[in-house]
Protein backbone atom coordinates (compact mmCIF):
# COMPACT_ATOMS: atom_id res chain seq x y z
CA UNK A 1 0.00 0.00 0.00
CA UNK A 2 2.89 2.31 0.86
CA UNK A 3 4.68 1.63 -2.43
CA UNK A 4 1.42 2.18 -4.21
CA UNK A 5 1.05 5.61 -2.65
CA UNK A 6 4.66 6.53 -3.44
CA UNK A 7 3.90 6.21 -7.11
CA UNK A 8 0.84 8.42 -6.81
CA UNK A 9 2.00 11.90 -5.99
CA UNK A 10 -1.52 13.30 -6.13
CA UNK A 11 -2.53 11.18 -3.15
CA UNK A 12 0.70 11.25 -1.18
CA UNK A 13 2.24 8.54 0.98
CA UNK A 14 0.46 9.77 4.09
CA UNK A 15 -2.89 9.33 2.40
CA UNK A 16 -2.82 5.55 2.76
CA UNK A 17 -1.76 5.44 6.39
CA UNK A 18 -4.41 5.26 9.08
CA UNK A 19 -6.04 7.47 10.10
CA UNK A 20 -6.58 9.16 6.73
CA UNK A 21 -5.65 12.82 6.83
CA UNK A 22 -7.76 15.66 5.53
CA UNK A 23 -6.06 16.19 2.19
CA UNK A 24 -7.60 19.07 0.33
CA UNK A 25 -8.05 18.51 -3.35
CA UNK A 26 -9.86 21.42 -4.91
CA UNK A 27 -11.18 22.14 -8.32
CA UNK A 28 -8.24 23.63 -10.21
CA UNK A 29 -8.11 26.81 -12.19
CA UNK A 30 -5.59 25.75 -14.84
CA UNK A 31 -3.49 28.43 -16.44
CA UNK A 32 -1.64 26.06 -18.76
CA UNK A 33 -3.20 24.79 -22.01
CA UNK A 34 -6.00 22.41 -21.19
CA UNK A 35 -5.36 18.76 -21.84
CA UNK A 36 -8.05 16.90 -23.69
CA UNK A 37 -10.07 14.54 -21.50
CA UNK A 38 -9.72 11.63 -23.93
CA UNK A 39 -5.94 12.12 -24.15
CA UNK A 40 -5.66 12.17 -20.36
CA UNK A 41 -7.76 9.04 -20.00
CA UNK A 42 -5.71 7.22 -22.60
CA UNK A 43 -2.50 8.20 -20.81
CA UNK A 44 -3.95 7.15 -17.46
CA UNK A 45 -4.88 3.78 -18.91
CA UNK A 46 -1.23 3.40 -19.92
CA UNK A 47 -0.33 4.01 -16.29
CA UNK A 48 1.02 7.53 -16.50
CA UNK A 49 0.80 9.01 -13.02
CA UNK A 50 0.77 12.61 -14.28
CA UNK A 51 -2.37 11.87 -16.25
CA UNK A 52 -3.96 10.32 -13.18
CA UNK A 53 -2.98 13.36 -11.19
CA UNK A 54 -4.62 15.69 -13.71
CA UNK A 55 -7.78 13.57 -13.82
CA UNK A 56 -8.03 13.50 -10.03
CA UNK A 57 -7.63 17.25 -9.89
CA UNK A 58 -10.26 17.67 -12.55
CA UNK A 59 -12.91 15.30 -11.19
CA UNK A 60 -12.33 14.80 -7.48
CA UNK A 61 -14.56 17.64 -6.39
CA UNK A 62 -17.42 16.20 -8.40
CA UNK A 63 -16.96 12.82 -6.67
CA UNK A 64 -17.02 14.51 -3.25
CA UNK A 65 -20.20 16.43 -4.16
CA UNK A 66 -21.88 13.17 -5.24
CA UNK A 67 -21.07 11.67 -1.84
CA UNK A 68 -22.27 14.78 -0.02
CA UNK A 69 -25.56 14.47 -1.87
CA UNK A 70 -25.92 11.00 -0.36
CA UNK A 71 -25.76 12.58 3.08
CA UNK A 72 -22.16 11.63 3.82
CA UNK A 73 -20.22 14.10 5.95
CA UNK A 74 -17.61 16.14 4.14
CA UNK A 75 -14.57 14.72 5.92
CA UNK A 76 -15.73 11.16 5.28
CA UNK A 77 -16.70 12.02 1.70
CA UNK A 78 -13.18 13.25 0.97
CA UNK A 79 -11.64 10.10 2.42
CA UNK A 80 -13.95 7.86 0.40
CA UNK A 81 -13.26 9.84 -2.78
CA UNK A 82 -9.54 9.41 -2.21
CA UNK A 83 -9.92 5.71 -1.67
CA UNK A 84 -12.01 5.44 -4.82
CA UNK A 85 -9.23 6.97 -6.91
CA UNK A 86 -6.70 4.63 -5.36
CA UNK A 87 -8.88 1.65 -6.23
CA UNK A 88 -9.15 2.81 -9.83
CA UNK A 89 -5.39 3.18 -10.15
CA UNK A 90 -4.97 -0.22 -8.57
CA UNK A 91 -7.38 -1.75 -11.07
CA UNK A 92 -5.50 -0.11 -13.93
CA UNK A 93 -2.22 -1.54 -12.68
CA UNK A 94 -3.72 -4.98 -12.48
CA UNK A 95 -4.93 -4.65 -16.05
CA UNK A 96 -8.57 -4.74 -14.99
CA UNK A 97 -9.46 -1.31 -16.29
CA UNK A 98 -10.22 -1.28 -20.00
CA UNK A 99 -12.13 1.98 -20.25
CA UNK A 100 -12.06 5.14 -18.21
CA UNK A 101 -15.17 7.32 -18.22
CA UNK A 102 -14.90 10.07 -15.68
CA UNK A 103 -16.23 11.24 -13.38
CA UNK A 104 -18.88 8.50 -13.66
CA UNK A 105 -16.54 5.61 -12.92
CA UNK A 106 -14.99 7.32 -9.90
CA UNK A 107 -18.45 8.24 -8.59
CA UNK A 108 -19.64 4.66 -8.99
CA UNK A 109 -16.53 3.37 -7.21
CA UNK A 110 -16.99 5.89 -4.40
CA UNK A 111 -20.66 4.99 -4.09
CA UNK A 112 -19.73 1.33 -3.79
CA UNK A 113 -17.17 2.12 -1.09
CA UNK A 114 -19.70 4.25 0.80
CA UNK A 115 -22.20 1.41 0.70
CA UNK A 116 -19.56 -1.04 1.84
CA UNK A 117 -18.65 1.22 4.76
CA UNK A 118 -22.32 1.56 5.74
CA UNK A 119 -22.71 -2.21 5.73
CA UNK A 120 -19.60 -2.65 7.85
CA UNK A 121 -20.92 -0.12 10.34
CA UNK A 122 -24.30 -1.83 10.40
CA UNK A 123 -22.59 -5.18 11.10
CA UNK A 124 -20.66 -3.75 14.00
CA UNK A 125 -23.95 -2.48 15.43
CA UNK A 126 -25.06 -6.07 16.13
CA UNK A 127 -26.65 -6.72 12.74
CA UNK A 128 -29.47 -4.23 13.07
CA UNK A 129 -29.59 -2.60 9.63
CA UNK A 130 -33.40 -2.50 9.58
CA UNK A 131 -33.41 -0.14 12.52
CA UNK A 132 -32.85 2.59 9.98
CA UNK A 133 -36.38 4.00 9.56
CA UNK A 134 -35.89 5.04 5.94
CA UNK A 135 -34.68 1.58 4.89
CA UNK A 136 -37.53 -0.06 6.76
CA UNK A 137 -40.10 2.19 5.07
CA UNK A 138 -38.67 1.46 1.62
CA UNK A 139 -38.67 -2.26 2.20
CA UNK A 140 -42.24 -2.11 3.43
CA UNK A 141 -43.45 0.03 0.53
CA UNK A 142 -41.49 -0.29 -2.71
CA UNK A 143 -43.83 2.25 -4.34
CA UNK A 144 -42.09 4.95 -2.30
CA UNK A 145 -39.16 4.83 -4.72
CA UNK A 146 -41.43 5.08 -7.75
CA UNK A 147 -43.27 8.06 -6.32
CA UNK A 148 -40.00 9.78 -5.46
CA UNK A 149 -38.76 9.19 -9.01
CA UNK A 150 -41.95 10.66 -10.44
CA UNK A 151 -41.69 13.78 -8.28
CA UNK A 152 -38.04 14.16 -9.30
CA UNK A 153 -39.00 13.81 -12.96
CA UNK A 154 -41.60 16.55 -12.61
CA UNK A 155 -39.11 18.86 -10.94
CA UNK A 156 -36.52 18.26 -13.61
CA UNK A 157 -39.07 18.97 -16.34
CA UNK A 158 -40.01 22.24 -14.65
CA UNK A 159 -36.37 23.23 -14.38
CA UNK A 160 -35.75 22.36 -18.05
CA UNK A 161 -38.57 24.69 -18.99
CA UNK A 162 -37.10 27.48 -16.85
CA UNK A 163 -33.69 26.89 -18.41
CA UNK A 164 -35.16 27.18 -21.91
CA UNK A 165 -36.29 30.71 -21.03
CA UNK A 166 -32.74 31.81 -20.10
CA UNK A 167 -30.60 33.64 -22.64
CA UNK A 168 -28.71 31.50 -25.19
CA UNK A 169 -25.34 32.45 -23.69
CA UNK A 170 -26.51 31.57 -20.16
CA UNK A 171 -27.80 28.22 -21.44
CA UNK A 172 -24.50 27.53 -23.13
CA UNK A 173 -22.51 28.30 -19.98
CA UNK A 174 -24.84 26.12 -17.92
CA UNK A 175 -24.68 23.23 -20.38
CA UNK A 176 -20.89 23.34 -20.48
CA UNK A 177 -20.56 23.52 -16.70
CA UNK A 178 -23.07 20.73 -16.05
CA UNK A 179 -22.68 18.74 -19.23
CA UNK A 180 -20.84 15.87 -17.56
CA UNK A 181 -17.53 16.58 -19.28
CA UNK A 182 -16.02 17.68 -15.98
CA UNK A 183 -15.08 21.09 -17.30
CA UNK A 184 -13.86 23.49 -14.66
CA UNK A 185 -15.27 27.00 -14.64
CA UNK A 186 -11.98 28.24 -16.07
CA UNK A 187 -12.33 25.84 -18.97
CA UNK A 188 -15.92 26.94 -19.55
CA UNK A 189 -14.74 30.56 -19.52
CA UNK A 190 -12.11 29.75 -22.14
CA UNK A 191 -14.61 28.03 -24.40
CA UNK A 192 -17.20 30.80 -24.33
CA UNK A 193 -14.67 33.64 -24.30
CA UNK A 194 -15.82 35.19 -21.04
CA UNK A 195 -13.99 35.92 -17.82
CA UNK A 196 -14.06 33.38 -15.01
CA UNK A 197 -15.86 35.92 -12.86
CA UNK A 198 -18.57 36.42 -15.46
CA UNK A 199 -19.04 32.67 -15.93
CA UNK A 200 -19.53 32.21 -12.19
CA UNK A 201 -21.93 35.13 -12.11
CA UNK A 202 -23.98 33.59 -14.93
CA UNK A 203 -23.98 30.21 -13.21
CA UNK A 204 -25.18 31.74 -9.94
CA UNK A 205 -27.99 33.54 -11.77
CA UNK A 206 -29.12 30.41 -13.61
CA UNK A 207 -28.85 28.32 -10.47
CA UNK A 208 -31.00 30.84 -8.59
CA UNK A 209 -33.73 30.64 -11.23
CA UNK A 210 -33.64 26.85 -11.34
CA UNK A 211 -33.59 26.65 -7.56
CA UNK A 212 -36.70 28.81 -7.37
CA UNK A 213 -38.41 26.59 -9.94
CA UNK A 214 -37.48 23.42 -8.09
CA UNK A 215 -38.51 24.74 -4.71
CA UNK A 216 -41.78 26.00 -6.17
CA UNK A 217 -42.49 22.56 -7.57
CA UNK A 218 -41.61 21.04 -4.23
CA UNK A 219 -44.03 23.21 -2.26
CA UNK A 220 -46.97 22.40 -4.56
Amino acid at each position, binding site marked *: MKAFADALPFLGAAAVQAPPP*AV*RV*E*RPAPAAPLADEATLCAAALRGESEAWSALVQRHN*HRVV*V*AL*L*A*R*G*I*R*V*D*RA*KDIAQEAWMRLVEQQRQGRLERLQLPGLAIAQAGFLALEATRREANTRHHEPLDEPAIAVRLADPRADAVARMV*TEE*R*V*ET*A*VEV*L*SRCSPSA*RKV*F*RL*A*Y*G*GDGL*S*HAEVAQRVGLSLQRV*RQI*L*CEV*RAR*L*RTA*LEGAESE
Partner: protein
Amino acid sequence: MSGRHATPAELELYVLGALDAGRVESFEAHCAECDACAAALSGEASLEIAFEQVSKRAGKTPVVRPLRAAAYGAAGVVAMAAAVLLWVGHGHAAGLGPGAGEGTAAAGHPTMDDGAILDARNDALDGG
Protein backbone atom coordinates in the same frame (compact mmCIF):
# COMPACT_ATOMS: atom_id res chain seq x y z
CA MET B 1 -17.96 22.80 17.46
CA SER B 2 -15.41 24.62 15.35
CA GLY B 3 -16.06 27.91 13.56
CA ARG B 4 -19.24 29.69 12.58
CA HIS B 5 -22.21 28.32 10.65
CA ALA B 6 -22.01 28.22 6.88
CA THR B 7 -23.97 30.85 4.98
CA PRO B 8 -26.14 29.88 1.96
CA ALA B 9 -23.67 31.68 -0.31
CA GLU B 10 -20.77 29.68 1.12
CA LEU B 11 -22.65 26.42 0.67
CA GLU B 12 -23.29 27.27 -2.95
CA LEU B 13 -19.72 28.39 -3.59
CA TYR B 14 -18.38 25.23 -1.97
CA VAL B 15 -20.31 22.84 -4.20
CA LEU B 16 -19.35 24.97 -7.18
CA GLY B 17 -15.71 24.55 -6.13
CA ALA B 18 -15.40 28.31 -5.90
CA LEU B 19 -15.21 28.93 -2.16
CA ASP B 20 -12.29 31.11 -1.12
CA ALA B 21 -9.30 28.87 -0.42
CA GLY B 22 -8.74 30.56 2.92
CA ARG B 23 -12.23 29.63 4.08
CA VAL B 24 -12.40 26.04 2.79
CA GLU B 25 -10.59 24.41 5.69
CA SER B 26 -12.67 26.00 8.46
CA PHE B 27 -15.86 25.48 6.42
CA GLU B 28 -15.18 21.76 6.06
CA ALA B 29 -14.17 21.40 9.69
CA HIS B 30 -17.41 23.01 10.78
CA CYS B 31 -19.62 21.02 8.40
CA ALA B 32 -18.00 17.80 9.62
CA GLU B 33 -19.28 18.52 13.13
CA CYS B 34 -22.44 20.58 12.73
CA ASP B 35 -25.57 18.58 11.89
CA ALA B 36 -27.50 21.55 10.51
CA CYS B 37 -24.69 22.69 8.22
CA ALA B 38 -23.98 19.11 7.12
CA ALA B 39 -27.64 18.71 6.16
CA ALA B 40 -27.63 22.05 4.34
CA LEU B 41 -24.48 21.07 2.47
CA SER B 42 -26.03 17.75 1.51
CA GLY B 43 -29.08 19.58 0.18
CA GLU B 44 -26.92 21.92 -1.85
CA ALA B 45 -24.98 18.98 -3.26
CA SER B 46 -28.26 17.25 -4.20
CA LEU B 47 -29.26 20.37 -6.05
CA GLU B 48 -25.97 20.27 -7.92
CA ILE B 49 -26.71 16.71 -9.02
CA ALA B 50 -30.23 17.79 -10.05
CA PHE B 51 -28.72 20.54 -12.21
CA GLU B 52 -26.72 17.92 -14.06
CA GLN B 53 -29.93 16.03 -14.76
CA VAL B 54 -31.51 19.25 -15.98
CA SER B 55 -28.57 19.86 -18.29
CA LYS B 56 -28.78 16.35 -19.72
CA ARG B 57 -32.52 16.58 -20.20
CA ALA B 58 -32.25 20.01 -21.80
CA GLY B 59 -29.75 18.54 -24.25
CA LYS B 60 -32.32 15.96 -25.33
CA THR B 61 -35.27 18.34 -25.53
CA PRO B 62 -35.50 20.04 -28.94
CA VAL B 63 -35.48 23.78 -28.52
CA VAL B 64 -38.06 25.49 -30.77
CA ARG B 65 -36.90 29.06 -31.16
CA PRO B 66 -39.65 31.72 -31.35
CA LEU B 67 -38.67 32.96 -34.83
CA ARG B 68 -38.48 29.47 -36.21
CA ALA B 69 -41.81 28.59 -34.61
CA ALA B 70 -43.39 31.68 -36.20
CA ALA B 71 -41.96 30.70 -39.58
CA TYR B 72 -43.37 27.18 -39.24
CA GLY B 73 -46.76 28.66 -38.28
CA ALA B 74 -46.77 31.00 -41.28
CA ALA B 75 -45.83 28.12 -43.58
CA GLY B 76 -48.72 26.12 -42.18
CA VAL B 77 -51.18 28.94 -42.83
CA VAL B 78 -49.90 29.34 -46.40
CA ALA B 79 -50.22 25.60 -47.00
CA MET B 80 -53.78 25.61 -45.67
CA ALA B 81 -54.67 28.59 -47.86
CA ALA B 82 -53.22 26.82 -50.89
CA ALA B 83 -55.22 23.70 -50.08
CA VAL B 84 -58.43 25.77 -49.82
CA LEU B 85 -57.71 27.45 -53.15
CA LEU B 86 -57.11 24.09 -54.81
CA TRP B 87 -60.31 22.75 -53.38
CA VAL B 88 -62.28 25.79 -54.59
CA GLY B 89 -60.62 25.51 -58.00
CA HIS B 90 -61.55 21.83 -58.08
CA GLY B 91 -65.16 22.75 -57.34
CA HIS B 92 -65.19 25.28 -60.12
CA ALA B 93 -63.63 22.81 -62.50
CA ALA B 94 -66.27 20.23 -61.64
CA GLY B 95 -69.13 22.70 -61.96
CA LEU B 96 -68.07 24.74 -64.99
CA GLY B 97 -66.72 22.04 -67.25
CA PRO B 98 -63.39 21.50 -69.01
CA GLY B 99 -61.04 24.48 -69.09
CA ALA B 100 -62.72 26.37 -66.26
CA GLY B 101 -60.18 25.17 -63.68
CA GLU B 102 -57.07 26.07 -65.64
CA GLY B 103 -54.18 27.18 -63.47
CA THR B 104 -55.12 24.86 -60.62
CA ALA B 105 -53.95 21.36 -59.78
CA ALA B 106 -57.38 20.08 -60.81
CA ALA B 107 -56.93 21.34 -64.34
CA GLY B 108 -56.51 18.64 -66.94
CA HIS B 109 -57.73 15.85 -64.66
CA PRO B 110 -61.08 14.24 -65.32
CA THR B 111 -63.55 15.15 -62.57
CA MET B 112 -65.43 12.44 -60.73
CA ASP B 113 -68.19 12.79 -58.14
CA ASP B 114 -68.64 10.58 -55.07
CA GLY B 115 -71.34 8.47 -56.68
CA ALA B 116 -69.05 7.61 -59.58
CA ILE B 117 -66.27 6.60 -57.15
CA LEU B 118 -68.68 4.30 -55.27
CA ASP B 119 -69.89 2.76 -58.54
CA ALA B 120 -66.28 2.09 -59.59
CA ARG B 121 -65.51 0.41 -56.23
CA ASN B 122 -68.64 -1.74 -56.44
CA ASP B 123 -67.71 -2.79 -59.95
CA ALA B 124 -64.26 -3.76 -58.75
CA LEU B 125 -65.74 -5.84 -55.90
CA ASP B 126 -68.15 -7.53 -58.27
CA GLY B 127 -65.23 -8.49 -60.47
CA GLY B 128 -66.35 -6.16 -63.24
